[in-house]
């Protein structure tokens, strides 16, 4: 994470250049690779990354381990489905409505934010189980185990997004907005405060920081964003079943954040790409998918908590180092500069 007030501009410039490159690539991609299925997968990755970025704010920034994000994802999905399919609400309103519904539900969690560590984790887990039971049992509302069918496609300004390329732009667009929104938190009073809470909540309190209030804010933000993701998901796959919103979904979101690197927004996106994309490209994994992810989770804890993001950063730095030395025609060195 870049420091606030830090005058080291060169680093910032490099990050900006890379970001612009990536954004440009994402915009151009559908014209290069128009395969419908590939675009659908990329849409799913974008949707997952939104939920993952929400958890990143919770876990990576404010240090709260929540394994209940699937609850808000589910609330968002079903709310959006109900609003559009049953009440004829236009999609953009349903999208926001989904986020708002999830955010309101998260207010129930506010008392829980007093808890820390594993207690908090278990409480969020309990909450998400209750939500799951509700989704499964209230058939009149959600269709229960029979599922919720007939969800309309997303539409903007009256234009239905039938082409996978258009829904790709929608999903990637929302993901980009979420990314750039959260990126602005880091060098701010809010960002520093929640970071401080993560590192030492008592010291933060002694400095006058309203710890519980800020922790709750993070929950609401993460829930809102998970709700958005849920809505996008509902209109992308157009069919919902309670099984999509179990504890396992919460765990998947956690895995995305951990694999990508706790604390890194870009990592959350990378993690989402791996968790959603990898099984598609390694069909052989199939059944072993969760097994592999469990192992990766443990391995990441044992060998490198920076996750993929840290790995990429190191790689980029090494490559930059090597190319600089080559350009200056210097002999290779064993140790990288501090």
């Amino acid at each position, binding site marked *: *994470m870049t*420091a*606030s*007030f*830090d*005058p*080291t501009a060169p680093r910032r410039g490099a990050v900006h250049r890379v970001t612009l490159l990536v954004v440009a690539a994402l915009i151009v991609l559908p014209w290069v690779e128009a395969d419908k299925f590939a675009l659908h997968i990329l849409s799913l990755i974008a949707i997952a990354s939104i939920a993952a970025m929400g958890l990143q704010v919770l876990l990576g920034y404010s240090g709260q381990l929540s394994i209940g994000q699937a609850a808000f994802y589910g609330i968002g999905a079903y709310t959006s489905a109900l609003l559009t399919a049953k009440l004829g609400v236009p999609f953009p309103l349903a999208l926001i409505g989904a986020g708002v519904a999830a955010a309101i539900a998260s207010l129930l969690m506010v008392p829980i934010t007093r808890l820390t560590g594993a207690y908090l984790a278990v409480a969020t887990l309990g909450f998400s189980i209750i939500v799951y039971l509700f989704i499964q049992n209230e058939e009149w509302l959600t269709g229960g185990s029979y599922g919720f069918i007939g969800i309309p496609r997303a539409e903007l300004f009256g234009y239905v997004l039938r082409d996978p390329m258009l829904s790709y732009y929608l999903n990637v667009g929302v993901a980009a907005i979420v990314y750039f*929104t959260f990126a*602005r*938190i880091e*060098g*701010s*009073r*809010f*960002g*520093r*405060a929640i*970071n*401080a809470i993560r*590192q*030492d909540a*008592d*010291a*933060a*309190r*002694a*400095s*006058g*920081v*309203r*710890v519980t209030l800020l922790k709750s*804010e993070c929950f609401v*933000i993460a829930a809102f964003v998970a709700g958005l993701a849920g809505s996008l998901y509902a209109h992308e796959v157009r069919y919902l079943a309670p099984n999509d919103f179990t504890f396992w979904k919460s765990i998947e979101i956690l895995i995305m954040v951990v694999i990508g690197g706790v604390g890194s927004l870009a990592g959350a996106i990378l993690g989402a790409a791996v968790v959603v994309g990898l099984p598609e490209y390694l069909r052989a994994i199939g059944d072993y998918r969760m097994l592999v992810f469990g192992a990766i989770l443990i391995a990441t804890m044992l060998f490198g908590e920076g996750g993929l993001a840290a790995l990429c950063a190191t790689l980029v730095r090494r490559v930059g180092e090597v190319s600089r030395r080559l350009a200056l025609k210097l002999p290779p060195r064993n140790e990288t500069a501090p």
Partner: protein
Amino acid sequence: MNTSAHDDAWLLEARSVTRRFGGLLAVDAVDLAVRRGSVHGLIGPNGAGKTTLLNLVAGVHRVSSGVLRFGARDITQHSSARRARAGIRRTFQNLKLFGEMTALENVAIGLHAQMRAGFFDAVLATPRHRREERSIEDRSMTVLHFVGLAGVAHVRSGALAYGHRRLLEIARAMVARPTLLLLDEPAAGLNVTEAAHVSELIARIRDAGTTVILVEHHMDVVMRVSDEITVLNYGRRLAHGTPAQIQEDPGVIEAYLGRSGENEGAQA
């Protein structure tokens, strides 16, 4: 009970304050009166209850009985964050810095409660956000200059030398210009030169208008910079007076010398 100009002289009063932990009486009916604008030393042998008393003033522990007054207000039931916002700041004996953040960012947290910019201000880069960030940066750099750490403002606090980390704790507590500053062993582990620097810093803090309660084991620091000293022993107030008076007090001498043998191996 009697509201006179005389009471205005006392910034912090602890009246018959007691704190029990299970069966242990850590602080036993202690009276403490800290004069506005003074440095008030709090000393005593290991286990005397000094840090506990400081924690009671800071609001980390609730008193088991007794009253705490800060200025005209009864703060006995107030939370520690509320007291922090009211102008009582503290440092920690075991250094609780935010290791991953730079020195400047650590100090910036000290100003959190004075500012208002929130999540939306950050995202939209509102004028309030920009204005407050500039103010935070200026004020934080000023206080870093004050303690002598301006040169390491952008260094990760976890990477700083121990002596600098102790100074940074003080800077973070000072940046909001607290009315009352609670220092918990600020010179712990410092060598003679560094300890002298801390004494001089505390004097400058007092001269700048902040009242200080100082818990310390370094006798030269306490004696040099305190205006008044309260001595605790076994959780009770043993003596109170100027440094000169305390150094002559037979009860204090006995408490320290008489216990120095037993203290070998006792926990800090």
